[in-house]
């Protein structure tokens, strides 16, 4: 079973190296890993997918916690969550196939972001399954390039992966009526 682990880590040089090195050294297999900024300044968010059949997931989270730069680790596999991946696919086109490709792209609610005389780039967002299906259909036209981001994920509703010191909403500034009058 695939497990999705979200780790909030200090945005410091070498942190990705520490995480990747840990996975290699402990023989944990990474299926995918994505990193980017989180909602909190100074914290990056990693989404890591591991295969529970080959890797003891509990050890993954515990070993991740041992890294000083790792602030919060959540295994969100069992939570109801939204999983997305983005892919760009460059497909070979001819006069004859272009409209057919556009039809397929529409069905998948994907976008065409570049058109050239003999190729176009499709941008698609969705679960890994959806992207796999689209690739399957496009293959017969001749795929020239594929770039996939790997999965990012977020728990639905109030459940979340943010650390205890969650960012508070910015205070609403109330302007006194008299001032308001002055401004107007």
């Amino acid at each position, binding site marked *: 079973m695939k497990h999705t682990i979200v780790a909030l880590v200090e945005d410091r040089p070498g942190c990705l*190296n520490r995480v990747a090195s840990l996975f290699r050294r402990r023989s944990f297999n990474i299926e995918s890993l994505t990193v980017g900024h989180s909602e909190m300044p100074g914290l990056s968010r990693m989404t890591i997918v591991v295969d529970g059949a080959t890797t003891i997931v509990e050890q993954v989270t515990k070993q991740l916690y041992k890294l000083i730069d790792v602030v919060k680790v959540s295994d969100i596999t069992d939570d109801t969550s939204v999983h997305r991946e983005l892919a760009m696919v460059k497909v070979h086109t001819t006069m004859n196939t272009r409209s057919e490709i556009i039809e397929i792209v529409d069905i998948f609610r994907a976008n065409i972001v570049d058109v050239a005389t003999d190729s176009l780039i499709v941008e698609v967002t969705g679960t890994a399954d959806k992207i796999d299906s689209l690739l399957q259909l496009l293959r017969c036209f001749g795929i020239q390039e594929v770039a996939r981001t790997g999965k990012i994920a977020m728990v639905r509703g109030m459940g979340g992966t943010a650390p205890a010191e969650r960012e508070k909403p910015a205070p609403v500034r109330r302007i006194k009526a008299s001032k308001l009058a002055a401004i107007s």
Partner: protein
Amino acid sequence: MKRTGGQIVCECLLREGVDVLFGFPGGVVLPLYDTFPQYPQLRHILVRHEQGAAHAADGYARATGKVGVCVATSGPGATNLVTGIATAYLDSSPVVALTGQVATPFIGKDSFQEVDIVGITLPITKHNYLVERTEDLPQVFKEAFHIARTGRPGPVLIDLPKDVFTGEAQFSYPEHVSMRGYKPTLHGHPAQVEKAVKLLNEAKRPVIVAGRGVIVSHAFAELKELAEKAQIPVINTLLGISSFPESHVLSFGMLGMHGMAYANMAVSACDLLVAIGMRFDDRATGKVSAFAPHAQIVHIDVDPAEIGKNVRVNVPIVGDVKNVLAALNKRLVQQNRADWISQIDAWRRDHPSTVIRDTDKLLPQHVVRKIYEVTGGDATMVSDVGQNQMWTAQHFWYDKPNSLISSGGLGTMGFALPAAMGAKVGRPDETVWAVVGDGGFQMNIQELATLVQDNIGVKIAILNNGFLGMVRQWQELFHGRRYVGTHMTSPDYVKLAAAYGMPGYRVTAKEDAEMAIREAMAHQGPVLMEFVVESEENVYPMVAPGTALSEIIEEPVREVVA
């Protein structure tokens, strides 16, 4: 007033209570060394090889409980520390390693004596730093020492580019340290403690297996109270030896590959195993699937990642051992387990495990036993790795808390001499013995010069059997007695001692051992003693690798040749 990076490093070290550094200078750390004369409170001990500095800092840390500090220059200086850092990491020893680095504009250019030591030590440090600005030094040092000594202790490396030493900044040392990614759990969860109490009260045949965590957390009194109150036999891991007095009626020796037969039998028969500050190393457990087959397991450790890593655990308690045991002791019911204890006593009578066979020859076991008799157990024993390590563990009775220092996890040959050096610096008023084989001794033999230059009075007992003994034993038992690459010659150790400038003794007869040990003890400074012992003596009892703890091989009965 602005200060240089070198001065700031020294100020930070003083704020952290450091009084001694084991180090070896070189190009990029020169600006740091240049400031040492301004800080006479910092004693610098010049080692002869950086590996010696790392082991000495480790030995110092284990002997004192304080953070040990070693210093090396960039490149080869830094890489020479690596074995010592890994040794400290595997045995959870608080060490801060300072390495010089080429100046920041030269980093990444394959400059002279440049090496990516932060990358190299990533998997063998608790954490490490590359400092890029002089003004970052106080924060980094504050964090590094905090990380090294708290939670599960471990080594932290700080890589210091040359221009960070020469740069200038205002110095103010942070009073508090707060890292959102580092908050060790120190108190056991009350519900877990309650579950453990229930198991302890219900168990018929419980044992405690106490590891180095007891020593690290100074939980000697708490462990004793737990054992006595609930009447539970105490068994130690190799590194747990001296966490519980071995002359105590409830002490039943060491478990594992060369553990006491009765200890392994007790673990194999128990119905509750209380693992305290230990991590189920394969040398301790034997075949994991057959480890403590009838037991529920309570595992107390400060490192959550150790829970369930190697063996299944019924009740994990994450927390500092001292706190957790204190909480347990409050809730325990007084017990009487005379039947179970007399059962293990009977096993001990039938399988004594520490009886030395009757012979006129000088056996390595005799040497350890004689050191015990002469010192009355009042000594810090530092062992190397291999047969000498096992005999030092088996044939000395450790009643003093934290009196055995050994490289357990990494099993680093060459550890004993420099680690004993560090231990003696940390415990100047104690007798410190380094027990070492002829193989391991020759790995860090250069530190004899350090002992003499700084008059560090380590007593060295070389058990010279002309072999890499433990490897030879495996070749004898598992490789048809084909001794490949294990026979080894030695220099004339007495002449060698003279050449380095210390007294040297050679003992070849059993009856001379005691007198020589007494003479060595009477001498103030370092002494080297070579004991020429039986060359093919084996360590028993033994549990062959990959077999269960219950499959104990005991010493074969030998014919006594008159």
